[in-house]
């Protein structure tokens, strides 16, 4: 889904390294790029080489991507920091698995901090998009390439092993006409009839580096205003709202349906941009909702962003299953039921 969407978004360069559970994407890219006259696929010698090849392709003007899973993404962080610093567009897919360390190959959401806090060294952020369905994977992939080009910054698509293995019908958008994309007046393609160009991140003068850091910070503020997004489900009359993203949100949706059947006023809020985080939408809900339950396939990472957004306005509860455990809607609905009555939310 992401592979085909990437090709249709005009991606012409993919470099990657084998790692489970996301090899389907790498293999799809290999055959898709081979079918394109101007497509390049490289099976790199390492995750680090792959991201650095993407940097080179991006410098040369291509829409470029790489993908991996948690341990591989750790290795790629060097390059992601350089992409952010050098203001180069690129798309990185992380199909999260259980960790830390080698962990396992089951679906998990333990890389939230790494993804949303930059992940590599230095003062930067990465746009993070979190699809929860096959269709949304395709749609957000298109957006990822557009955002990367527009804001000149790396964009991460954050999924998990469940999303990676999912099969769903998807309607793909028409392929992008590459000739109609906005020009890139910074590309390194040889200084013919123009002054030579430089793409760098070394800024030895501390005041220049400070200016660069603030410039990036202002860019992230612009991004936060322009692209932030989340989806609400049955929140209108809700007394308790579940907040979850990706696969966890799908499970939570099933749980919300179940508890609605027994009359509990419970809704779901699903952020699909994790950086920027939809703070305002959560604050808006807090005017009527005094209890939020954050559900993650981790020991609790996004829950910190919810608390930061709310600044004490409402109660924040947490339920998590790390390590590759995938909860059932039944399990979550029991958790909801118990919390709902503990908080006496059934009382008018």
């Amino acid at each position: 889904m992401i592979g085909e969407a990437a090709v249709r978004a005009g991606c012409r360069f993919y470099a990657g390294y084998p790692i489970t559970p996301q090899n389907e994407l790498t293999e799809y890219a290999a055959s898709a790029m081979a079918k394109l006259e101007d497509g390049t696929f490289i099976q790199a010698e390492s995750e680090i080489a792959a991201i650095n090849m993407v940097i080179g392709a991006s410098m040369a003007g291509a829409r470029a991507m790489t993908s991996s899973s948690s341990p591989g993404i750790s290795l790629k962080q060097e390059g992601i920091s350089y992409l952010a610093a050098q203001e180069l567009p690129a798309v990185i897919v992380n199909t999260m698995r259980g960790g830390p360390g080698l962990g396992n190959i089951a679906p998990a959401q333990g890389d939230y901090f790494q993804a949303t806090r930059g992940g590599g060294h230095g003062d930067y952020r990465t746009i993070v998009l979190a699809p929860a369905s096959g269709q949304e994977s395709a749609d957000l992939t298109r957006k990822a390439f557009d955002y990367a080009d527009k804001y000149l910054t790396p964009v991460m698509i954050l999924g998990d092993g469940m999303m990676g293995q999912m099969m769903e019908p998807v309607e793909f958008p028409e392929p992008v006409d590459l000739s109609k994309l906005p020009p890139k007046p910074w590309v390194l393609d040889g200084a013919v009839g123009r002054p030579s160009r430089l793409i760098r991140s070394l800024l030895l003068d501390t005041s220049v580096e400070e200016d660069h850091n603030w410039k990036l910070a202002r860019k992230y503020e612009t991004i936060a205003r322009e692209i932030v997004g989340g989806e609400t489900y049955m929140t209108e009359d809700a007394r308790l709202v579940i907040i979850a993203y990706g696969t966890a949100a799908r499970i939570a949706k099933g749980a919300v349906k179940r508890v609605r059947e027994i009359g509990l006023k419970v809704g779901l809020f699903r952020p699909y941009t994790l950086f920027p985080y939809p703070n305002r939408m959560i604050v808006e809900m807090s005017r009527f909702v005094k209890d939020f339950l954050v559900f993650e396939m981790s020991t609790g990472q996004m829950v910190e962003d919810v608390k930061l957004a709310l600044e004490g306005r409402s109660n924040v509860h947490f339920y998590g299953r790390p390590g590759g455990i995938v909860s059932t809607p039944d399990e979550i609905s029991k958790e909801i039921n118990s919390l709902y009555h503990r908080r006496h939310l059934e009382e008018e």
Partner: protein
Amino acid sequence: MEKKVFQRPKYLKDAVFHYCPGCGHSIIHRLLAEVLEELDIGDKAIGVPPAGCAVLAYNYFDVDMGEAAHGRGAAVATGIKRILPDRIVFTYQGDGDIAAIGTAETIHAANRGENVTVIFVNNGTYGMTGGQMAPTTLPGQNSTTTPGGRDPDRDGPPIDLSQMLAITKGSTYIERTAVNSYKNIKRTKKALTKAFKTQMAGLGFSLVEILSPCPTNWKMSSVDAAKWVDETMTKIFPLKVIKDETGKRIDN
């Protein structure tokens, strides 16, 4: 009538080198700029500078430059060249950059036969960080991290990366030269010319390893450092054509 017999090459900016007196980088920069001009490829050249003393190379070369992280030059160059195969792509790397932290990137780029040119400056030390042991530091040679000299039993012997690269099927032309004497400088320019001609003809991976004096970190005078290259360094790293499979496909 006056006739200009010496001037700044077209592809060097009007900037003062920051390199130490007696360092080989300034000479190599000039040779590279001359070769880009003589082969008329400067306008379509894209250079990848390293981390190390030559990290500021982009202040001097008046061609498109894209900085790579430490050791990743060959991977970045691969990405650029695959997207723009008709441009001339080169990396400029030191011994620590290419033969320690960037060994994997370099070997695999060579093995894939990436059609790029690598300028490998071997001065046997981490110059910019202050003279620590490099992968190419000679046995017995002092460094700030090998008190008493490099001990091959403890630190491993110097690594001959060029020789390793030569056994990859994808490498086409590899030569080791030096810039410590007039004769060697001429030979280096010839090697650089051949390396770029190899790329221009689309023949695959080319590399010139250049032994380069570092008087500051070797703690020698410039003259002694130049002598030391001949008398000591070339015993471990002999100057020679290590691999040449260009055959008659390019003119010399």
